């Protein structure tokens, strides 16, 4: 059954893929050609991958416009929940370089929990602090992953 109305999101996703393919083709064309002898130029695989994506993306675009992907109808976006998660991610990126991982992690944790319907920000803050410190010590001391304590450096 052909659908009369193309789904906006499907068209947008296909168009975005076409765009990525074009950017990728442009980047391939600016790869400096090596003066060093090589049997296969460093541009061959990028050409294949980029033009492959372009062809597939164009077919997908056609499919989205005329037939639809045939996936089930998507549910309406819950902007409140999504907004909280996005806010948490933004706060995380803003705080981690300045105040350090522990603060960023607590902010992220509280916002995401709020987004998923938690109504107890104080309790979440407490859990967040425990989680941040616990995982900081675990990764930093056990795995040797340096995530930086920020302004708490020297205290932890």
């Amino acid at each position, binding site marked *: 059954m052909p659908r009369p109305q193309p789904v906006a999101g499907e068209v947008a*996703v296909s168009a975005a893929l076409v765009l990525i393919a074009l950017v990728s083709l442009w980047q391939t064309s600016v790869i400096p050609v090596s003066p060093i002898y090589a049997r296969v130029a460093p541009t061959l695989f990028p050409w294949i991958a980029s033009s*492959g994506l372009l062809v597939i993306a164009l077919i997908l675009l056609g499919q989205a416009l005329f037939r639809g992907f045939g996936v089930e109808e998507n549910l309406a976006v819950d902007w409140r929940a999504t907004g909280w998660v996005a806010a*948490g991610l933004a706060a995380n990126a803003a705080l981690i370089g300045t105040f350090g991982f522990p603060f960023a992690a607590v902010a992220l944790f509280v916002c995401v*929990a709020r987004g*998923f319907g938690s109504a107890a920000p104080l309790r979440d803050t407490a859990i967040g602090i425990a989680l941040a410190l616990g995982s900081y010590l675990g990764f930093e001391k056990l*795995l040797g992953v340096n995530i930086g304590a920020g302004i708490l450096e020297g205290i932890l």
Partner: protein
Amino acid sequence: MDTLAALAGGFATALTPTHLLFAFVGCLLGTAVGVLPGIGPALTVALLLPITFQVPATSAFILFAGVYYGAMYGGSTTSILLNTPGESATIITALEGHRMARAGRAGPALATAAIGSFVAGTIGTVALTFFAPMVVELALKLGPAEYFSLMVIAFVAVSAVLGASALRGLACLFLGLILGIVGVDLQTGQPRFTFGMIELLDGIEVTIVAVGLFAVAETLHLATRHRHGKDELLPLQGSLWLSREDWARSWKPWLRGALIGFPFGAVPAGGAELPTFLSYYIERKLSRHPEEFGRGAIEGVAGPEAANNASAAGVLMPMLTLGLPTSVTAAIMLSAFQSYGIQPGPLLFQTQGELVWGLIASLYVGNVMLLVLNLPLVGLWVKILKIPAPQLYGGILVFATIGAYGVSNSVIDLLVMYAVGVVGLFMKRYDFPVAPAIIGMILGPLAEQSFRQALTISQGDTTTFITRPISAAFLAIALLLGLGPRLWAAWAAARPARA
């Protein structure tokens, strides 16, 4: 006999206290992430990648293998009690298992899943033990041209065969290939796709992409549909002991599942979903109670669960003998090998015998540990399932942050992870598969390398891929895999019209 001696040596490695501990921690972690919806073994291994800088390769891989096997066990618990398959390979388990739990038979469902996983996992590991050396013999005869053609099979299989739409799968494969190109070309030293940014010269970290696609995208996706639907956790009811009738109805599906699962995992066209579907179908055909299917038939849990564990063992075969990952977790394990500077492939069995056989032996050990962890201790995992969603997803994103930021303490890495997460959100929303992107990204550079080596050997003659018989056969298989199902569908559609 050589194999048995090597295996004995492997047990000597695996049974040291340190390695037992690594195996145990891996199994514990693996079961936990398998149980928790939203995180899986691929994400966990990606988060644990930094451990490769800390401990010897053997220990790290024993840990990873424990996570990998453990998640297969844990996933079934979630499917049965929550009807939310933790892993794609346990979708079928949810069909019958959840019905059994609704009927108050959660206990037997969990028991047949755990014992079936053990039986099939062990059979799969035995098969791996004895077939892997044979595959190595064959693999030593393959040149770069054959390797390239093998990778083409893997690419076609993950993108065009598995999954709902070949087009969307291929789009993701090419996206992954493009991601894999970013950075300095190793052969000529030219920067590619770096947009002039120094940060991109080293390429994009696998960890960042994997964590972005799995943790960030998954959380965003669930947030967008938060207000719709809640899952209901069913109580653990019914004895964990299987009745005589349950045993009688379970053991044949276990064995059949193992026989179906291993080969599917082992051929480069792997994937654990297909054998579970096949096993379910066969059990329904063979059952003396076909009317129970769809209403909680124990065979429908026993067979597919066995199949998915056997295929998990199977996936390790091309991974270890050929360096060819066919699942996302295996692909990330391959990048762990690379971070040790080890190239998996036939030579691995000669140069890293202790590592390979220690790993294989630890799979036997892990299976025993997992049986104990999952059967008597199933109550513990049910408690983990009760972690409320707000705190669970908050925690997942905190760990994701550590994974991305810990690579080089760069906020840019974090933002790249977010960007990948947003792309992943759209992929989920419009049903684009994730696996081709990850496998393309990790396997793409290896394919390019083989391609170049092949052309260097043939002195630029591109027909080398079709004039060398084995390579030509591989390419023919890839072609068949890609076109076969479509031709079949077209033929099936045309037939009633003709009749």
